[in-house]
């Protein structure tokens, strides 16, 4: 035992000065529009790049990409790789995987970091690239950073050392109320996907300049084993949850599916408001999956979040904890939600929410005398 301690003390760790490569963001776009998560990744990637002192690069794959490459520069990229080809018009795993893997293989130096959005596309593509290059990939990150890491574990001596510029991929470790920092400094690119709605995009800057490079597209017959027959876009009539300023969310404490009618009524008191839900009630079929907030649903950060009958388990909390003001209504005074909400009311949703609607309606009338008739006609 003593010997071991001495060994620890005398040990100087070898420093692994890995070359500081660029940061690469894989862009995502739908029907000619860059996806918000791509702009968020450029914002996060810019911070990492500035710490590394390297370039922020971005790859965009598709067909008839128009001004999207320029936009990527205006949102922070220094160098944009463009693969524009008729066979890349809609996203398909194998052709997109081929183009991105070929790009990475053609670079003189691997990117230090490679980032994708944690969307159905990013989560489909990122693991294929990571497995191809046998490199690490962390899913669904909520924070990214660059920093040093000392690896001392004796299990694998070849990995021991001090790594000065690791990607810190930080994600909630669910069900365990922990935030885990996941590292993979042994091999570049260090990959991560990030959750939409979490990172902050830069302001668009029309005066930013950068380089645009066309890249080769060499697809093989085996890349066409899967064909897309049809793409269906649902036109969402309701306001998108992630765009709402105010979210009224319901959980099992509502008692029945009808409880959501009450929440809709409360939402109607506000401008730009939407109705959200916990996983449990979505699983029960009380409300569609589109409304689900949390680990397996959407991450939201409205200015105001009113949680009605939601206990506030970690799975829900990770999806909404960045909201401006959180008000919780719950029967159980010990519900975890009261530990992180800003305001709480211990009481039955069925009693508290109608009272809140009544007072808010009164408030509206009070602030605007004479509109009573108009309100009632709605």
């Amino acid at each position, binding site marked *: 035992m003593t010997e071991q301690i001495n060994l620890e003390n005398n040990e100087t760790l070898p420093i692994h000065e890995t070359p500081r490569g660029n940061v690469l963001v894989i862009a995502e776009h739908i029907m000619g529009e860059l996806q918000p998560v791509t702009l968020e990744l450029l914002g996060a990637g810019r911070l990492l790049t500035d710490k590394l002192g390297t370039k922020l690069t971005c790859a965009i794959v598709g067909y008839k990409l128009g001004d999207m490459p320029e936009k990527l520069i205006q949102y922070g990229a220094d160098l944009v790789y463009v693969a524009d080809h008729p066979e890349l018009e809609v*996203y398909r795993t194998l052709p997109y995987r081929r183009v991105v893997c070929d790009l990475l293989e053609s670079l003189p130096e691997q990117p230090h970091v490679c980032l994708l959005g944690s969307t*159905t596309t990013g989560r489909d593509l990122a693991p294929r690239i990571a497995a*191809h290059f046998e490199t*690490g990939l962390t899913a669904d990150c909520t924070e990214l950073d660059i920093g040093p890491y000392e690896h001392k574990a004796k299990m694998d001596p070849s990995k021991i050392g001090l790594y000065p510029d690791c990607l810190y*991929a930080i994600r909630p470790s669910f069900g365990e109320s922990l935030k885990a920092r996941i*590292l993979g400094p042994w091999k570049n690119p260090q990959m991560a996907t990030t959750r939409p709605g979490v990172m902050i995009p830069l302001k668009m800057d029309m005066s930013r300049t950068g380089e645009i490079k066309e890249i080769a597209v060499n697809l093989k017959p085996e890349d066409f084993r899967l064909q897309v027959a049809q*793409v269906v876009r649902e036109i969402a009539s309701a306001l998108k949850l992630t765009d709402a300023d105010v979210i009224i969310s319901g959980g099992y404490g509502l008692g029945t599916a009808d409880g959501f009618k009450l929440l809709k009524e409360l939402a109607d008191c506000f401008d730009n408001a939407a109705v959200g839900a916990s996983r449990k009630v979505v699983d029960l079929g009380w409300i569609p999956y589109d409304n689900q907030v949390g680990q*397996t649903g959407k991450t939201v950060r409205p200015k105001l979040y009113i949680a009605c009958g939601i206990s506030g388990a970690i799975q829900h909390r990770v999806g909404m904890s960045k909201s401006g003001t959180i008000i919780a209504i719950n029967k159980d005074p010990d519900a975890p939600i009261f530990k992180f909400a*800003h305001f709480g009311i*211990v009481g039955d949703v069925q009693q508290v929410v109608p009272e809140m609607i009544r007072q808010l309606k009164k408030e509206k009338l009070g602030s605007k005398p004479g509109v009573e008739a108009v309100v009632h006609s709605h």
Partner: protein
Amino acid sequence: MPGPYDIFVLVKQVPDQGSKAGLNPDGTIDRARAKRMLNPFDRYALQAALHTKRTYGGRVTCISMGPPPAVEVLLEALEHGVDRGVLLSDRRLAASDTLATAYALHKTILWCGHYDLIFCGLQTTDGDTAQVGPQIAERLNLPQVTYCEDFSLDVENDRLKARRIIEGGCQHVISQLPALITVANSYHPLEYKSFRGAWKVAYLQRHADELSKVITTVDLDIIGAESDRCGLKGSPTIVAHTDKVGELGGSCKVSEGQAPEIMVSDVLKASNVKEFLAVS
């Protein structure tokens, strides 16, 4: 004519986060004491595999990786109607990340033999990465359908037709076989186990020799996997540091024990709720 199909389904045993057993007061899970369960997402994959067998004919092989108690999820799968189970269990697999897990599982799949369709759950509740399925597809050089909500087989042309979720809609895809499919939780829920299945498993549990014909336990040497590519050694990522998720939002002002109108009025006064009221 192709078929009957060789159908594989991958499942995992996870800690039951809904159960209070094994839950430490600070919210962390004591995995040794926690109740174990079949990963809820895998129930959809199991349903997809059994549906394929019942509709088009074939044999379902259920594969899992984990410590010896993980045999429980294979028994559960047998009760639901799978034909055989394979458990990959080896101490050298401890601390595998998704890349190492996908390596070990793809070696297990190759050891099991011919396959037409491989079904996986979308993700697990203890890892939440959704990475292992696509990483196996990459190793096996297969086309993949992730977030699959519904599918049918075009038996004549030996193809798969599927609908998968994408942002704000869905894609209809046609894929050659073999293919790997990760099944979304908007697919049909798992049907109840059959009386016959439950009876069969009860019988097998009393007859170890019969059980060993249906459930095979393998290790890295049997499947021919390189141990350096598994476990901690074969994992390019490590969990370097964990933080307790801090108390968010500071101290919550809780109103309790008063009439609803007073509590609501207090909160409306103290908070900024009124800033967001609709103007019309």
